[in-house]
């Protein structure tokens, strides 16, 4: 972590960057918040640990509108999101100094099943322990680092940054699950079971829009779901239809652009596995139009703005 702070200090003091986008120490180890640092003095609150799961690339849209360069710390998977924003011309590469930071899997405090959590040790950067020690109001507990990891880290896209000016720190391979296993499990269900599954998950939705607002691919100036022109703007969670509409359309609007960064599932206050929608599209795109990873490069044509004359017909695979 000191290495990151030193880098930030050097660049801030030399004037090469006007601000640093990183994570700020919260009340505890487990609640750091994304933050802009404009003075080297303020960097005393900088933190980078296992709980810095927040993907900072979307903040670069706003940062890019400001005077001067912004130093941003991106984890390997965050760099895909940044790259995708770059190819959509939503961020200005010239105004970013990207430090690719190492990542050994990020943690979710919601996955730690103990009550009254005070301190968690073992999540330090770069020497994360195999086991987290959790000090609670009701005693000390331990949990394997892996067990507290975010879902996305179990299907990690790899240790490589796709865009950076400089790399600091080592990353670890955290993959221990098949990315599409859950999608396949659902695909194998009967229509009734599928419907029941999504109904029970989506009926929890409170329409807070956290998934949309955190999503680096959802960068529209005005979302169709905020439009008052017709009744797509439905803040009510009156009926189950309305949630389906929102989540299907949202997933569709980011299809072919979603890097599978997993922020939507991380932020959902109701724990809805929203990545299952995006991953279904990714899986279909891979199967029908060839392997495609959004954000991996700046050149290849996105699957939904491309076609071949031999494409499959709609309803492919139906019985």
């Amino acid at each position, binding site marked *: 972590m000191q290495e990151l702070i030193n880098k930030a200090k050097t660049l801030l003091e030399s004037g090469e960057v006007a601000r640093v986008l990183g994570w700020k120490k*919260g*009340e*505890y180890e487990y*609640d*750091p*918040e*994304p*933050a*802009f640092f404009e003075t080297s003095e303020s960097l005393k609150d900088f933190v980078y640990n296992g709980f810095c799961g*927040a993907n900072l690339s979307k*903040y670069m849209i706003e940062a890019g509108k400001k005077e001067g360069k912004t130093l941003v710390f991106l984890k390997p998977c965050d760099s895909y999101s940044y790259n995708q924003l770059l190819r959509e011309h939503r961020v200005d590469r010239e105004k970013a100094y990207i430090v690719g930071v190492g990542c050994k899997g990020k943690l979710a405090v*919601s996955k730690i099943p103990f*009550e*009254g*959590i*005070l301190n968690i040790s073992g999540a330090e950067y770069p020497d994360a322990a195999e086991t987290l020690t959790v000090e*609670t*109001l*009701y005693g000390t507990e331990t949990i394997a680092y892996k067990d507290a990891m975010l879902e996305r880290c179990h299907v990690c896209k790899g240790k490589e940054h796709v865009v950076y000016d400089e790399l600091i720190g080592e990353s670890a391979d955290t993959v221990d699950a098949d990315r599409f296993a859950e999608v396949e499990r659902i695909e194998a269900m009967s229509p009734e079971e599928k419907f029941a599954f999504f109904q*029970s*998950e989506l*009926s*929890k939705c*409170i*329409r*807070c*829009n*956290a998934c*949309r*607002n*955190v999503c680096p691919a959802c960068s529209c100036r005005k979302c169709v779901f*905020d439009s*008052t022109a017709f*009744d797509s*703007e*439905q*803040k*009510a*969670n*009156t009926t189950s239809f309305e949630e389906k509409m929102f989540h299907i359309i949202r997933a569709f609007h980011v299809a072919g652009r979603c890097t599978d960064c997993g922020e939507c599932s*991380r*932020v959902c*206050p*109701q*724990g*809805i596995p929203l990545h299952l929608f995006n991953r279904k599209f990714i899986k279909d795109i891979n199967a029908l139009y060839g392997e495609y990873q959004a954000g991996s490069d700046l050149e290849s044509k996105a699957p939904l703005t491309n076609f071949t004359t031999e494409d499959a017909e709609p309803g492919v695979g139906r019985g």
Partner: protein
Amino acid sequence: MYKIKKENLTALYAAIAAENDLFLPIKAAGQTNFGLWTENAEVDIDTLKTVKSGKDIFFPQSETLYKVRREEGKFAIDGEAPRQTPFVVFGIRGCDVRALAVLDKVFLSDPIDSYYAARRQMGTIVSLACGKPATSCFCKVFGVDCAEPEGDVVTWLVGDTLYWKAKTKKGEQLTEKMTSLLEKADEAAVEAEQAAIRAIVEKLPYSKLSLDKWGAAAADANFDSPIWEQMYKPCLACGTCTFVCPTCQCYDIKDYSTGNGVQRYRCWDSCMYSDFTMMAHGNNRTSQMQRFRQRFMHKLAYFPANNQGMFSCVGCGRCVDKCPSHLNIVKVIKAFEKEGV
């Protein structure tokens, strides 16, 4: 004081539900929220904080106010009748019960909101003391005693026994109907539990938050503070904090065209949304900083200024747990405490 074995609670729920709608914490798809009891529901009274607070029962996230039918150019208004049947809320915690007192100030002030008022009249509240307060709890700061919550009936879960004590007339009426399931008990076990709870509350990290910088006077004093500009930046402008909050009461009134007419409904809204104050001629809160400030100023300064010092926060800590960017009211209170104004 009465008691009932935890294993007999299902019988108690069934008995209550036989005469009234019964709302209680139900776990579905991994999350616990208040819902209507049915025989198949997975009741979960052990989870300290339901994701959404009990606010939903009295002020639903979405409710129809009236329907308008149009026939030959004429409108016919079909107003929704306020609730007329009694119901019971079981297992609601002290902070959420206090939150109803906050909502009362809004909805029961003139002109009274008849939909909310009817639910308040029809509802009997069976609250549950918090055996294991969490790190993010700070109800003590707002004078809530989670060892002795308010409510028509108060219950305590001690080991495998639920203790039951009626506190109001409504509570006594409910208790009378349940006597066949309840046994008489003495207060000793509850007193010990309360002492244990209060000891933990003393140790809670946020129990000593200071509200000195807040209250009616803060409406002027804190408005122009540079702290807002420093703090708001990670805010995603989502509505998570407002929707999980037991006291946030802002709402929107919207139309839904069904093809046969229009349903006018009211639904929760969030002051964090960019279009919240948007109108044809402009917007008076154009920046996220202003919207962020509005939320906390409303809870900690404007509301007390209009309601004899009562804060519009009950310290339930849901926003502390749920904010995607880990921003929350505790951080705001602490920032003002530390840096002053």
